[in-house]
């Protein structure tokens, strides 16, 4: 046993796969300890907030302010509001308004804004100008107002008695705060999703659930397959015929179709994550059963089994001691594959809207499904779907690598 394990861990494929998988498992276990946020809590009002560090604006006003004189701060500020494209668009509008093009220097911000402020008229339309263009110029106009002002921003509160505004503070353009001194900062490494949930927290919870689904599906499939394979292979005869008949049926009926049919007939309100896992397991035991059976058949007539019989051992003892250890490697390999295919199956079902019901737990498939419904891929909100795809792929990939590694160890012909 130790020997085999050592051999397995000498296979680079297995080691890489195992490392990735362990990393995933560790993340799933450790992350919630440090970030105990409920994964389904809606924290954002609005959808698909970009990944980043969110600093509470109100708190930042009250945080100690520092003056930093940094070069280029002004130009950065201006550039963030008025980029080259906007400048060209302004030029275009101004030319359309009748100002000669050579009089407009789009790099001279001050002159450009002066020209713009004196001439811009939102009601004006030129031939070929669409409503979208019009809206754009109005937004642009709003955004550049006061852009060149160097005055501080004034913070004022309403006086409760008089109802008038009382100035409490001024924020200079050179004021900075230290993020660590702001009371409320939330890091959203992967932003938020369409429900306004923290994607990373949700992803990790979903990975956990998906892994569990995979495990349950794998256990169900492996158990069914193992038992049927053992019984069929060991007992032979009529039992074997009947079991093989069923197995052959399940082999040729596409499991995905079966999965759709069963999931569909269960109905959404019955479809918990566990149920889905069991259904997936129920539709994917065939390979295990076949592999186990053929192994058992070849083992059944092996001399050590005969010897064990001659030593007076019972069937159960023989199966447990003389057959199971031999097929254990196959079963473990099949189990690993079942887990990864279970996770993939859940994801596929969820995309079809046949996944587990959403309310209690996130799953990778459901995250994917919702990201698609809210069109994250079209809107360029990669963080809502890409990490999910990568996670699914990594899980499946690591498992397959482990499997390939084990295969090389257990299948001597595959060794070089």
């Amino acid at each position, binding site marked *: 046993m130790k020997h085999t394990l050592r051999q397995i861990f000498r296979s680079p494929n297995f080691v890489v796969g195992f490392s990735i998988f362990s990393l995933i498992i560790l993340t799933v276990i450790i992350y919630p300890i440090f970030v105990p946020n409920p994964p389904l809590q809606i924290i954002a009002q609005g959808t698909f907030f970009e990944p980043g560090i969110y600093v509470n604006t109100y708190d930042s006003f009250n945080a100690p302010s520092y003056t930093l004189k940094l070069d280029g701060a002004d130009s950065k500020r201006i550039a963030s509001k008025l980029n080259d494209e906007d400048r060209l668009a302004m030029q275009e509008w101004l030319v359309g308004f009748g100002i000669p093009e050579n009089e407009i220097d789009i790099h001279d911000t001050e002159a450009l804004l002066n020209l713009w402020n004196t001439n811009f008229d939102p009601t004006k339309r030129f031939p070929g100008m669409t409503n979208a263009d019009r809206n754009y110029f109005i937004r642009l106009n709003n955004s550049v107002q006061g852009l060149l002002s160097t005055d501080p921003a004034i913070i004022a509160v309403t006086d409760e008695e008089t109802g008038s505004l009382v100035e409490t503070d001024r924020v200079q353009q050179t004021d900075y705060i230290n993020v660590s001194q702001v009371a409320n900062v939330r890091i959203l490494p992967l932003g938020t999703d369409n429900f306004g949930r923290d994607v990373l927290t949700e992803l990790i919870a979903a990975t956990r659930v998906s892994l569990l689904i995979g495990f349950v599906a794998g256990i169900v499939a492996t158990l069914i397959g193992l038992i049927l394979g053992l019984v069929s292979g060991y007992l032979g005869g009529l039992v074997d015929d009947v079991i093989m008949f069923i197995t*052959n049926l399940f082999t040729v009926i*596409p499991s995905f*179709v079966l999965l759709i049919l069963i999931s569909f007939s269960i109905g959404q309100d019955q479809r918990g994550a566990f149920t889905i896992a069991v259904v997936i397991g129920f539709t994917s035991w065939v390979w295990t059963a076949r592999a186990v059976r053929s192994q058992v058949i070849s083992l059944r007539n092996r001399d050590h089994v005969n010897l064990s019989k001659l030593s007076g051992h019972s069937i159960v003892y023989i199966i447990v001691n003389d057959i199971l250890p031999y097929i254990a490697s196959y079963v473990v390999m099949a189990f690993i594959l079942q887990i990864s295919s279970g996770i993939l199956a859940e994801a596929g079902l969820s995309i079809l809207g046949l996944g587990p019901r959403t309310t209690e737990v996130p799953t990778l498939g459901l995250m*994917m499904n919702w990201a698609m419904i809210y069109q994250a891929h079209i809107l360029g909100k990669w963080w809502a779907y890409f990490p999910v795809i990568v996670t*699914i792929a990594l899980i499946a990939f690591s498992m397959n*690598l482990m499997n390939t590694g084990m295969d090389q160890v257990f*299948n001597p012909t595959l060794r070089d």
Partner: protein
Amino acid sequence: MKGYLKYFLNKLGWFLVTMIFAFILNFTLPRLMPGDPVAAIVSRLAQGMSDASGVQAIYEQYTELFGTNKPIIEQFFIYMRNVFRGDFGYSIAQYPRTVADVIKSSIWWTIALQFPAIIVGWFLGNMLGALAAYVRGGFDKIIMPISIFLSNLPAFGMAIIMMVVFAVWLKWFPTSGGYGFDLIPNFSWKFIWSVIVHYQLPFWSIVIITIGGQAIGMRSMSIYELNADYVKYSRFMGIKDRKIIGYVFRNAMLPQITGLALSIGTMVGGALVAEIIFSYPGLGSTILTAVLGQDYPLISAVTLIITAMLLTANFALEIVYGFLDPRIKATQAD
């Protein structure tokens, strides 16, 4: 030939038995779902009717039409009889369209997309696996893990990534549909070209995920075959490596045909999902529509047709396999 005939009959028998079983499953499973589909149609039709007896009358008319008032066994036989006539009844969600009509308009897209994609993917995967087995070294250590990784991308993930990259960012290919949005089907070059362009993304997204799995299998098979005695003997008879590789690939590929037959079911599952992402007008989209619309006659029929297609493909592959591999004939002739 006797051996082959026996093989053929054996497979044919299996094919038929499985069809019957699949048919029963297809009939039964969707009907286990809670909710009365006829009520769903009728209650929509009955809006605006103020008297309950009118609704009841409509309801009875429709149960008669859908046959849901009969015992399930009788329904089964009626369904079976109708299916043999090519009549799958009415779609619930698209009533009064018939299921046959709904399927007829989508099935060819799926067949034209998936079978070539799966075969090309299978072929490329086998080439890759064989190369990996033969070349080994860097190729085996880099290309193989990459292809395994790609094949482990979920089908929809692959489709989405391809769509985002090639259609949304690079705008090399259209994002959805089976042909140009500004065209009407006809036999002009423009239309055919449009179909071809629209075909690419769904096609390759299926191909790429198919490759990896096949490559892994082929690699193992090839290594196994490369160690076979006939390789050593052929080498000592002075046959050049290229030719021996040819032997090996052919022999390694033969079991892969069975592998293809057996995994085609799973592949189609993934491929259907890819169709959905690209809004390709095939059965994948039809299934999605049917599932969301709780359209069980349609679900029954689509799954039945997919099963039938896959079983037929499976059957055909087995037959081809038996034909290609002399070992089959020999074992059956005993």
